[in-house]
């Protein structure tokens, strides 16, 4: 039996960017071909003259929040203005989170942990979720400059599955020292301002902004348009440079058009990624020319807006909506003489012409590509999918804890001894080729070691299609070293290697390069629930079709002696250094004899959450009859609330099964649940759990999460 996908309608939009602080101002700027690029004034820098950047004007609202949060809140509020619904989920793409504030705090050597409370990327989604009273998933994706478009794609998956009806999705990033000096250190900044596709272009203008779209699978009386298709791909080529022929970009565009059911000649306008770097613009042009003969009208707005990084995909999705509404196309600002090698003709000035189908490109570090097709009306074709969703089978697993690699950690678990600690980095990476990790620090080495071990556990030489990574804090060593080096050298010598390594998705990018994983490549950051978010993303994007049905799902966190105690309240509470992570090789297929994992529930902890969680797990009777063991994750900093929630859960389902508080053995770190997931799998595989019974991995505290593990018959 086939069912049809619902169309994903755009019910509301909001935008704050260097082009203007709302939709009307943005449109006016683009119609006037006005540039928002100017010398930096948001903060002061020691190296003068200041570079040209794209900076946004923001209101005084939410003054206690860091800049990224304020940008995000302003755009999210615009998208929700006049709506009479509450979003079921909030999905945010961001790379900066609260780093702009953390930079100041570190410079002042602040030791007050409360002042760092907004550092985590997840706090942007949390702030928006609170503002719009969303009690469902508050998800965060950090895939560098494609983050915003990735967040919108994930929202579409959630709406298509029918699990959500209203999702607020978008992206936000603010200017900060890290991105300002980071791109400069890579010599990717044009001192004259970004000139995409110009013959003498020298790079981008780093920018900022935020944009959000309220999306729904319901039919609307008034719709701003339809997100008709999305395509995620990975170059699997280089950490910071695009594939020279634009192979991943081409694949992303093709997937998005296929999903929308349109042919290349139906696209009226391409909103190019067009950053202004020599490599990106050439590679993107080549990809466009291979797919479109001749290309339709096209332009990059980044010569006017600067590059909003994680926000850019969402900013350009909202601008695409404006183009559809006003039959208007923005100019390719900044470009005076088109580079003949690019072989395309970007719009030299704004144009008025009918437009009903737009392709919008976003590409990021790690070869991370996300393309969206946005249309005025619902597509005419009937898209169908098999309604039988196959489970996520675990075909390989691995973990790292203070006790060592997988078998050493599992050994401790079965004798209920603590495995908490910080494994020597040399031992973490002992099985990795020295050359392959020479530019990676602890976090990425851990992720790569987990990926390699999970793949070896599977045993068959097959490239995974996707990579889904989760991490609470990402690459702390590179982030700290970059900022510390900047401070020590009066901002003169930022390290390009540390900048490339500091982005949250650097590890997932490395894994993709290592194994040639050209499918979706997502990095989630959801605080103590980052692994759960990565599993949700894998569940959303892994398809049943052979060759597209495998992925590595990894979650890891590194302990950093300076930052971890400041950032992670559970680390402070426990006063004990621990880190590690878990890795899975998953296949979307029913495989008898293999354990499957289902992300049954993810929601904000409140009065009704537990009942909803139990319903999502199949109801009280189902849980009572099937659950043989509970692995409970209660972060130390939320012990009281978490214990109460666990207690209520046990009473409500009325079961008497062993409950293991796994953080007591694994240690206090964000990705501890990934290690616990490996334990759950091992318990079932080794026959410790009666046949047909399940192990529940429950997360409590600020969120309530449930993953169910069961052997497939």
């Amino acid at each position, binding site marked *: 039996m086939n069912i049809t996908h619902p169309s994903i309608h755009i019910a509301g939009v909001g935008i704050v960017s260097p082009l203007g602080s709302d939709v009307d101002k943005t449109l006016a700027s683009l119609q006037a071909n006005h540039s928002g690029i100017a010398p930096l004034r948001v903060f002061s820098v020691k190296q003068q003259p200041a570079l040209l950047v794209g900076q946004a004007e923001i209101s005084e609202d939410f003054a206690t929040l860091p800049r990224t949060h304020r940008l995000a809140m302003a755009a999210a509020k615009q998208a929700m203005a006049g709506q009479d619904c509450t979003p079921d989920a909030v999905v945010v793409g961001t790379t900066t989170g609260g780093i702009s504030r953390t930079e100041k705090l570190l410079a002042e050597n602040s030791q007050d942990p409360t002042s760092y409370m907004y550092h985590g990327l997840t706090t942007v989604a949390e702030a928006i979720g609170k503002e719009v009273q969303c009690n469902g998933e508050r998800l965060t994706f950090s895939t560098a400059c494609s983050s915003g478009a990735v967040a919108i794609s994930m929202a579409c998956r959630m709406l298509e599955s029918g699990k959500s009806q209203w999702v607020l999705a978008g992206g936000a990033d603010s200017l900060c020292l890290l991105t300002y000096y980071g791109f400069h*250190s890579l010599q990717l900044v044009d001192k004259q301002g970004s000139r995409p596709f110009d013959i003498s272009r020298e790079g981008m203008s780093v920018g900022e902004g935020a944009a959000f779209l309220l999306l729904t699978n319901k039919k609307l009386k008034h719709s701003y348009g339809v997100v008709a298709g999305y395509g995620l791909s990975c170059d699997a080529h280089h950490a910071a440079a695009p594939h020279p022929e634009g192979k991943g970009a081409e694949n992303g565009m093709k997937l998005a058009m296929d999903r929308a059911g349109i042919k290349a000649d139906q696209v009226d306008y391409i909103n190019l990624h067009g950053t202004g770097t020599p490599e990106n613009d050439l590679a993107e042009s080549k990809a466009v020319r291979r797919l479109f003969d001749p290309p339709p009208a096209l332009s990059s707005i980044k010569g006017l807006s600067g590059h909003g990084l994680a926000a850019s995909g969402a900013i350009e999705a909202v601008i695409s909506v404006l183009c559809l509404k006003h039959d208007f196309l923005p100019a390719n600002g900044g470009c005076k003489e088109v580079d003949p090698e690019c072989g395309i003709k970007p719009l030299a000035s704004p144009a008025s012409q009918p437009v009903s189908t737009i392709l919008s490109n976003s590409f990021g570090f790690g070869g991370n590509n996300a393309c969206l097709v946005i249309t005025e009306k619902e597509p005419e074709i009937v898209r169908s999918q098999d309604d039988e969703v196959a489970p996520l089978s675990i075909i390989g697993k691995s973990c790292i804890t203070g006790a060592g690699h997988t078998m050493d950690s599992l050994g401790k678990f079965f004798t209920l001894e603590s495995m908490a600690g910080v494994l020597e980095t040399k031992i973490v990476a002992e099985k990795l080729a*020295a050359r392959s990790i*020479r*530019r990676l620090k602890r976090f990425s080495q851990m992720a790569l070691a987990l990926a390699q071990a999970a793949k070896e556990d599977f045993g068959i030489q097959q490239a995974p299609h996707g990579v889904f990574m989760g991490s609470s804090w990402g690459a702390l060593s590179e982030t700290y070293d970059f900022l510390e080096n900047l401070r020590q050298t009066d901002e003169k*010598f930022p*390290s*390009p*290697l540390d900048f*490339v390594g500091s982005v949250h998705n650097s590890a997932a990018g490395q894994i993709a390069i290592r194994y040639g994983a050209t499918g979706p490549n997502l990095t989630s950051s959801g605080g103590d629930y980052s692994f759960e978010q990565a599993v949700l993303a894998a569940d959303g994007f892994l398809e049943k079709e052979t060759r597209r049905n495998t992925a590595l799902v990894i979650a890891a966190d590194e302990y950093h002696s300076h930052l971890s105690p400041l950032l992670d309240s559970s680390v402070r509470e426990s006063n004990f250094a621990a880190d590690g992570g878990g890795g899975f090789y998953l296949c979307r297929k029913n495989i008898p004899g293999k354990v499957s994992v289902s992300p049954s529930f993810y929601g904000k902890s409140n009065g009704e959450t537990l009942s909803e969680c139990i319903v999502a797990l199949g109801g009280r009777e189902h849980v009572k009859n099937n659950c043989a063991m509970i692995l409970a994750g209660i972060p130390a900093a939320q012990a009281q609330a978490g214990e109460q929630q666990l207690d209520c859960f046990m009473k409500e389902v009325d079961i008497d099964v062993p409950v293991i508080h796994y953080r007591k053995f694994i240690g206090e770190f964000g990705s501890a649940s990934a290690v616990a997931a490996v334990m759950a799998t091992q318990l079932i595989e080794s026959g410790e759990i009666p046949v047909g019974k399940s192990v529940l991995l429950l997360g409590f505290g600020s969120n309530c999460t449930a993953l169910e593990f069961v052997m497939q018959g």
Partner: protein
Amino acid sequence: MDELTANIKDKLIEILNLTDVTPEDIDENAQLVGGELGIDSIDVLEMVVMVEKDYGVVISNKEIGEKVFSTLKNLVEYIRSNSLTLAS
């Protein structure tokens, strides 16, 4: 091997974390970028920073960079002839 060459070899091994390479392994006349050591464009940027920070020599454009980083020998010579620090 003169002192400057030895120093620069040590520095490259350190900043590029070439843990499996000894100074003797680096052939002064062999292709430095894209050669056997696996050094690529990001490493070049890190080397540019080191050359400016430690020797006060600015490599201001791609064309000069390509020449300077073609071999270790060229890099050493460029630093020797442009460094005020060394001269003093």
